[in-house]
C-alpha cells in the first residue's frame, strides 16, 4: 500500500458526505444526485459480518479521476465527485459515495449511475467478505486486462455507444 497523503478518491476513514456535495458552489445547477453504497449483511445467500476493501491506489486514483472527467464531459456536469472507502467496514458503513451536479435532474441521475458503475468495473479495488461462520472470500469481479476478451468488449461498448451506457456482466456484480 502506498502513501495515502495524496489520495483524493480513496480513504480509510468514514466518508463525510456533506463535504462532497459542494452546496455552496455551482449556482447554475438545479439537480444534485447522490449515490451511497453501504455494506449489506448478505451476499449470494451467505450471512456477511464485515468487509475489507483494498486497492492498488496509484491506478485506482488515476482511474477514478478519469471516470469523473468522462462523466463531466458526457453529461455536461458542473461538478462530480467519487469517494471510496478502504480498510475494514461493518454492516451499514458507507463504502462508496458518488455525487453529480447538473443543470437538470436527468443528467445528474444518469451521471451518478455512470460513476458508480464505472468505478465498480474499472478501479482496481477488491472486496473481501467475512462471513458469520468465520470463513472469508474475495468477491469475484471484472477483469481489467485490456487484451482479454472481456476487456475488449467493455471498451468497445462504452466507446461506440456513448449515449447508451451499459456495463458488462461481472461475476459477483449484485449491488
Amino acid at each position, binding site marked *: 500500500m502506498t502513501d495515502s497523503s495524496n489520495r483524493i478518491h480513496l480513504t480509510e476513514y468514514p466518508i463525510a458526505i456533506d463535504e462532497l456535495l459542494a452546496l455552496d458552489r455551482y449556482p447554475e445547477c438545479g439537480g444534485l444526485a447522490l449515490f451511497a*453504497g453501504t455494506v449489506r449483511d448478505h451476499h449470494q445467500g451467505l450471512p456477511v459480518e464485515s468487509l475489507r476493501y483494498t486497492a492498488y491506489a496509484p491506478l485506482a486514483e488515476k482511474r477514478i479521476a478519469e471516470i469523473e472527467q468522462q462523466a463531466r464531459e458526457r453529461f455536461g456536469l458542473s461538478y462530480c465527485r467519487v469517494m*471510496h472507502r478502504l480498510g475494514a467496514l461493518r454492516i451499514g458503513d458507507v463504502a462508496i459515495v458518488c455525487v453529480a451536479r447538473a443543470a437538470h435532474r436527468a443528467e445528474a441521475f444518469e451521471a451518478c449511475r455512470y460513476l458508480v458503475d464505472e*468505478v*465498480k468495473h474499472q478501479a482496481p*479495488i*477488491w472486496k473481501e467478505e467475512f462471513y458469520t461462520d468465520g470463513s472469508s472470500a474475495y468477491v469475484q469481479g*471484472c477483469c*481489467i486486462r485490456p487484451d*482479454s476478451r472481456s476487456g475488449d468488449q467493455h471498451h468497445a461498448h462504452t466507446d461506440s455507444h456513448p449515449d447508451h451506457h451499459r456495463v458488462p456482466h461481472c461475476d459477483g456484480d449484485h449491488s
Partner: protein
Amino acid sequence: MNLSFELYGELIPLAGGERISLVTEMAPATVAEALSVLADQCPALQPRLDQCAAVRDTDILLRSDPLPENGHLVLLPPVAGG
C-alpha cells in the same frame, strides 16, 4: 535476471504473500514470458493469471509488451469495488 511481482486481492492468499521475487537465467522479453515464468514457479497462481492485468506504475501493459527493464510487474486480479 531478477523478477518481482507485486500482488493484490485474491492473489495474496494464493501466493502466501504480497510480493514474489524470482531469479531467471534467461531474461523474459515480454510480459507474457515473465508471467509464464511466474506460473512455473508459483503453480497456485497459474489458474488466475489469465484474468490479471499486468501493470507498470499506472500503465496497464499488454501481454505482448516488453517486460519493464526493472523486471517488476504489479498484478491486478478482477476488480470488485463499490
